[in-house]
């Protein structure tokens, strides 16, 4: 029976009522990394803790991926079915800018500084028919909590 599973473990909390992105915080210098890593790229210590880094953030920069990438891109799409997608860095309250696919895929829908909300969405199916889930961000209202 097919089910939904994460494309990669450890990037976010899911399933959850309100999924959060996960990162690591260095216990020596306090800097945050995404994805979580044991070693600190700032102070070289090997003393970090996995922490939630939030589910909302501010769009720091963006672009639109207009052509279908070659492998290793693996979305199950074909040249015919490929849909352009947004890509951006989202500034998270956890203290790091996370690169992500964006729901929005036209320049008119995107501007630097806009608030963005995390969503965990189906990306493709594996050979067993399972839905592989990934993280994306979508534009949201300032007041949306």
């Amino acid at each position, binding site marked *: 029976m097919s089910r939904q599973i994460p494309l990669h473990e450890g990037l976010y909390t899911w399933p959850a009522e309100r999924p959060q992105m996960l990162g690591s915080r260095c216990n020596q210098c306090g800097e945050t990394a995404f994805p979580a890593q044991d070693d600190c790229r700032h102070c070289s210590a090997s003393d970090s803790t996995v922490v939630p880094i939030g589910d909302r953030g501010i769009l720091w920069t*963006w*672009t*639109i991926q207009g052509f279908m990438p070659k*492998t*290793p*891109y693996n*979305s199950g799409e074909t040249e015919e079915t490929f849909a352009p997608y947004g890509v951006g860095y989202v500034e998270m309250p956890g203290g790091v800018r996370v690169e992500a696919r964006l729901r929005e895929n036209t320049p008119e829908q995107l501007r630097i500084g806009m608030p963005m909300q995390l969503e965990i969405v189906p990306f493709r199916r594996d050979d067993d028919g399972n839905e592989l889930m990934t993280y994306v961000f979508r534009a949201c209202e300032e007041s949306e909590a």
Partner: protein
Amino acid sequence: MEVAIIGIGLHPFGRHEGMSGLKQGAAAVRAALADAGVTWEQMQFAYGGSQDAGNADALVNELGLTGLQFTNIWNGCATGGSSLHAAYTAIKSGAYDMGVVVGFDKHPRGAFNAKPSDWGIDDWYGETGLMLTTQFFAMKIQRYMHDHGISEDALIRVAERAFHNGSLNPTAWRQQALTYEQIAESTMVSHPLRKYMFCNPAEGGAALILCNADIARRFTSKPLFIKAAAVRTRHYGSFEVFSPSQAMTVADAPTVTASKAAFELAGIGPEDVHVLQLQDTDSGTEIIHMAENGFCEHGEQEHLMRSGATRIDGRLPINTDGGCLANGEPVGASGLRQVYEVCLQLRGHAGARQVPGQPSVGYTHVYGAPGVSGVNIITT
């Protein structure tokens, strides 16, 4: 101890059906040897690199099994700059008197498709379509335009100038000038960068013969001198390609530190440079690199592009051979193509694209994934 360039060779960039990348590298070495009037047997060492066309040291099968020290260099788009740096250091140390630096490549068509595991990243990053250099460059210039008031006009003018210079260069891949409108209306690839604002992977080879400056005049009446060679990598906080996340703090890019180190070594400043080659993987990176290398303030590029200051006859001639945009980018060879062009300019042999007024100080800059820059300063 000073280091001289006594020979330069190029196998034209572009597409060469039926000719391996290795053979293009060999052709470049033979051209450089002939230019210097020396033989392969005289080479005490070689540093060389290629991304997709095999190990550079396989060149000995083409050029002769002389037993020389041959070291393969691989440093992304900065491979050429890194090879030259290694050779410069080898001669500077006094260990060798003469050697060759070579780069060549032959890439499949279309954008590069890097493998996450080669860069210490898990597969999901590539699978979900985040691992593209084109995306990164688009996002970097998008933020830069926002922060420094650069408009699309400047991006278009970079490409316009590149293809104009390419039209004056018989060894360029793209020798047809494009109008402002053709560039402005070309397909959007990754907003804000359009088709003609990106360079394409290509083929070609480039080689240089270096020697101890004390003996340079035995081979040529006009040796050129490498006053500085510097390679630097990224710091924590610099915004670089293939990064699933960025730190909140902002640090100087590796280009800034490599450039400062090179100017310090050479004992001159940006105002002393007469001709320069800056990594122009796309229009946006050239704009950013103008400031990162110290040739203007952030934001000043808009005016510099509009006023024509960066044209061959301007006060700051950039990418006089058409740069990566008009030459394409065979990764292993690209950085050495820049040096080749600066040498032609300093010798006064650049033909229709010669910078007027007998330039005597040249500057080259390469930038590669995932955040490595190489800078060279060359003088007459």
